[in-house]
């Protein structure tokens, strides 16, 4: 039940992030992910950063061994794909604040584009360590969205964390929803800011994944399985778990501080 396809194009997005494009016809919705098999190496959950039509894409940030190897993948290389899995962002809200940290923007970009196409007014706050690591800034601007950025080192946009940007935006404009993906501490902070303004937040979260079928328990997060109940959750549900923003489980299933 998995498809082996050649990578048809690789795009270097930032010094540490690369997009792989490949033809994979199954329909997918914003928020969903696929399991990407790098033969001989590993199989990893990756959000779809491009999901319209058959030419899908995933945007991978080099973290450990396997994702680092992705930087070396050339067009023509075979990968295995299964999915899409998981739930989706609800595209109903009309005024959406999108908050992306690091590679989290991979899942947010197609969702933001789809919402805008559906007539929503979408504002995007992007955060990264430095300007060169800002993901999909140009793509989102090209899609006609309002995009502001924050960098830890101040090399572009507002200096400091993206949460500063979010606070300002929330205090000056009305929003129906906040969508966020990035480090959990960041997402927890964003959710707290939004709650103070009465705006519901939806977070796309990551946990270690093996089966992606709701079976093996690797991705357990409180009473949820991220692979089937998520990856998109209302922030209140996550904040009610003892783990969100604090613990994850490693490959052995041990609860470990994030």
């Amino acid at each position, binding site marked *: 039940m998995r498809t082996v396809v050649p990578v048809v194009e690789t795009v270097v997005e930032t010094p540490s992030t690369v997009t792989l494009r490949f033809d994979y016809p199954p329909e997918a919705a914003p928020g969903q992910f696929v399991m990407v098999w790098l033969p001989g190496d590993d199989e990893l959950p990756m959000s779809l950063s491009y999901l319209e039509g058959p030419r899908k894409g995933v945007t991978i940030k080099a973290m450990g061994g396997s994702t680092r190897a992705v930087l070396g993948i050339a067009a023509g290389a075979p990968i*295995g794909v299964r999915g899409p899995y998981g739930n989706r962002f609800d595209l109903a809200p009309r005024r959406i604040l999108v908050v992306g940290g690091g590679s989290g923007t991979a899942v947010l970009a197609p969702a933001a584009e789809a919402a805008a196409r559906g007539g929503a007014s979408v504002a995007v706050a992007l955060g990264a360590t430095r300007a060169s690591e800002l993901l999909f800034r140009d793509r989102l601007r090209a899609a006609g969205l309002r995009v502001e950025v924050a960098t830890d080192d101040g090399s572009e946009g507002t200096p400091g964390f993206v949460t500063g940007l979010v606070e300002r935006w929330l205090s000056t404009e009305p929003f129906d929803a906040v969508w966020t993906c990035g480090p959990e501490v960041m997402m927890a902070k964003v959710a707290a800011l939004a709650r103070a303004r009465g705006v519901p937040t939806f977070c796309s979260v990551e946990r270690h994944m*093996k089966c992606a079928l709701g079976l093996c328990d690797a991705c357990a997060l409180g009473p949820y399985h991220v692979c089937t109940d998520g990856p998109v959750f209302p922030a209140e549900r996550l904040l009610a778990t003892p783990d969100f923003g604090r613990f994850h489980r490693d490959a052995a299933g*041990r609860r470990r501080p994030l």
Partner: protein
Amino acid sequence: MAVLETDVAGVRLRNPFLLASGIWGESGESLAGAWRAGAGGVITKSIGSAPRAGYPNPTIELLDGGAMLNAMGLPNPGIDEYPAEIEIARRAGATVIGSVFGGTAEEFATLAGRIADTGVVAVELNLSCPHARGFGAEVGSTPEGVETILRAVVGAVRIPAIAKITPNAADPAALAAAAERGGAAAVSAINTVRALAIEPRLRRPVLAHGLGGLSGPAIKPIGLACVWQIFERVRIPIVGVGGIETADDAVDYLLAGARAVQIGTAVAGRGIGLFGRLPADLDRRLEALGFPSVRAAVGAAHPPADGAPRPAL
């Protein structure tokens, strides 16, 4: 209303549907979730002496016809950390059976003792994982090995020990008989069946480990044969497992000789809510078949001992 309550190894179960080991079994919240969904009891992931990350992905492959292939490689948090998870499940009121795996009889005995301390109602011994080097079926494939492990465990703990038998043997019933001799209070059968899937475009097996274990509907007839043969060989209760998705599947296992059953792979396709639906479905099926209780159906497909004609339809 058929009586769904049953018991295995002296443990009372509110219904015969147990969560199988390795499914929703790493976290206490998940075990509690399966219990709340309606499971008659929950079995933990198999726990070892040390934490194990398991094999690299791909660890699982869905095959045609709902069959599943896996080689997780026995990932588990290890016996030092895992009791905290059991505690969460027990606080939710769950009937918890602890599963352990070891490489030697001594290791099994130690692990059984440690997991018994957490208050589980019984310990299931994984003598049957088909793809973990040095564990599982590698130590559970001979009657001598099984008997030795059971003796060590039974000498070390006061809770009942359930031996989980491999189907990958010339005579699985002989393994069950050895477990009985060694003092097992019950046996469960079967674990997954050794199997393989190939990805021809990549010229390699799909699973990172190569060989894996087959589960799901495809193995139900294999599990039924094991339970059938074991029932004719031992007197201790049998827990049936392998490919059960519906109450009808469970009835087949009861009639073959099982007193309770476990559900694994079906959780992927049908969701944990399955545990809420199965008892009512089973009730209806037992009534329709003329069985007043789960217990009345156990072994009913075997020839009556007194040669009496079989009641039917």
